């Protein structure tokens, strides 16, 4: 369990838009053990998807630029790999499940073609072998009548079925690392329940590590072992799922958890708001990124960037614990 499959060290990603440089990811570090699920949470624009795309080396550069840091996958720095090497790694050793299953499948190719392509590319199988493995994969993600579905096109399937196909593509070569970027956000609640159950079952079957990116804290609470909370390009709190949800330390994590009405919450109680709006990553030049919305700021917060501190079992980036 302690074998680290992925280590991200001090990752910096800037976006260059005209004269403006936006630090979308600003010094993110974390590691992932074999078989572990990391939940990466945060609101839109906090840098969670950019982090994921950097790991997959799928960022469009320019405008993006990785200016500093290392991404060690099984001990090798992915940032030094050639595009050719990355093509061999992606889909085989690591893969990604995207949010929108309609736009991430090719509309003019059959489902069968799109999945068997993975086997042909990475495992040198013949067309026939690949097709029979494809049918096995579709069975694994519990798609009814797989022999028929392989001949169908994406538009003939429902959203939940398409997301199952995406999962089948991602799992085809039993990769060591799966990045799921909001895999259920576009789906209905009851379908979401089906997909989450499926991901959890398949994970224990092939023992992959998963990075689950979501803005939905409920989903993360359900599937993750570790949680990293991101705000404005930085991880502000990191720890195991129990301590982050039951004893959140960072004012932002606390605020997020209190902003959601839990199902047994009384209507008389007012929801706690986090005042203000999410700042652009280039808006706050010094000090803590959360200072404009925080209720417990101190002098240091205004001018100095908070260090990552061990508080209880969590790592927290906040001056209140210094």
């Amino acid at each position, binding site marked *: 369990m302690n074998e680290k499959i992925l280590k991200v060290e001090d990752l910096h990603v800037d976006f260059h838009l005209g004269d403006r440089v936006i630090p979308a990811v600003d010094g993110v570090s974390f590691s992932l053990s074999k078989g572990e699920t990391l939940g990466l949470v945060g*609101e*839109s624009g906090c840098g969670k998807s950019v982090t994921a795309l950097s790991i997959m080396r799928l960022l469009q550069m320019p405008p993006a630029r990785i200016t500093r840091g290392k991404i060690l996958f099984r001990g090798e720095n992915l940032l030094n790999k050639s595009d050719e090497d990355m093509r061999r790694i992606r889909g085989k050793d690591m893969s990604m499940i995207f949010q929108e299953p309609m736009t991430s499948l090719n509309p003019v190719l059959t489902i069968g073609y799109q999945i068997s392509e993975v086997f042909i590319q990475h495992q040198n199988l013949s067309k026939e072998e690949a097709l029979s493995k494809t049918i096995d994969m579709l069975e694994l993600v519990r798609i009814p009548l797989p022999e028929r579905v392989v001949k169908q096109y994406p538009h003939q399937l*429902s959203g*939940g*079925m398409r997301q199952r196909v995406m999962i089948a593509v991602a799992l085809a070569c039993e990769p060591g690392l799966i990045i799921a970027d909001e895999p259920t956000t576009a789906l*209905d*609640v*009851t*379908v*979401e*329940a*089906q997909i989450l*159950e499926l991901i959890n079952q398949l994970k224990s079957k092939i023992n992959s590590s998963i990075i689950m990116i979501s*803005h*939905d*804290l*409920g*989903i993360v*609470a*359900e599937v*993750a072992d570790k949680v990293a909370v991101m705000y404005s390009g930085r991880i502000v709190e990191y720890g195991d*799922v*129990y301590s982050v*949800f*039951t004893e959140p330390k960072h004012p932002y994590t606390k*605020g*997020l*958890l209190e*902003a*959601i*009405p*839990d*199902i047994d*919450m009384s*209507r008389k109680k*007012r*929801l*706690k*708001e*986090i*005042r203000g*709006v*999410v700042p652009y990553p280039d808006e706050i030049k010094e000090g803590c990124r959360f200072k404009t*919305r925080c209720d417990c700021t101190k002098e240091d917060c205004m001018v100095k960037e908070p260090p990552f501190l061990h508080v209880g079992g969590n790592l927290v980036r906040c001056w209140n614990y210094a």
Partner: protein
Amino acid sequence: MSARILEVKSLKKHFPVKSNLLGKAMETVKAVDGIDLYINYGEVLGLVGESGCGKSTTGRTILRLLDPTEGEILFEGNDIAKYNKKQLRTVYRNLQLIFQDPFASLNPRKKVGSAIEEVLYVHKIRNAAERKEKVKELFEMVGLRQEDMDKYPHEFSGGQRQRIVIARALAVNPKLIICDEPVSALDVSIQAQIVNLLNSLKNRLALSYLFISHDLRIVKYMSDRVAVMYLGKIVEIAPAEELFSNPLHPYSEALLSAIAVLKPGKKKKKIVLEGEVPSPVNPPSGCRFRTRCKYAMKQCSETEPQLKCLGGEHFVRCYLH
């Protein structure tokens, strides 16, 4: 005067999808297929269901943005289902709407202050100074600054835009507001601000809401009563507390069990439904949920169960009860 601000009786909205050579509809999507509901003065009725179940169509048909195929819409006792445009204009002084997407529901070329003034002008407040004063008051009410009146929509964040949309809805002093997914497009930290704003406005102005959302936690928090829709029909309607603690329809049960708990230790048993929502063009015979229901019996496929009162305000459409 009755205690009901809105009462909907066997409302149907069908959309033709295929027509024959003579232009006569051959197939129709039965988006809303006979629903009954009511909202009391000062009450919030939550309407939940998955995409395609007809909840937004219900909201839009009640507002007469879509013409109903059949049924009555009694707003303050008057059936507005057959009202013409001119008659509807007077209705809209009391009945308003908040859309989901605050990026699409504001005119990008209009300063937000004048967008609201326009509403007042349409509703016959013709004195310019009076209108300005009213806009000022509305901005304050929804927590925006006066300077914001002279800005364009793109200068605002999503949460602030939703505040503008709320101010616009409030401009005519409505009694009932149909809120169609009002916070779904917003970030979590901003959602709470808008939910709190809607709640305090409701108490302050004695408003009623029809609160349409797929976010079950927020619906539970906002509503007095909640209606669950499945494939164009209401399958269960009950006081919020009661529905969430004791859902009786198998669909409500599965839907509510799918809510993720925020406490990682407390994993509850989820009821995972098999299969998918059938097409609303050809809904299953009898009970519409029977194809996915684990309790389905013979009679479920033969005749459709009726919405049955189980005491108090708890109604269920299921043969089990």
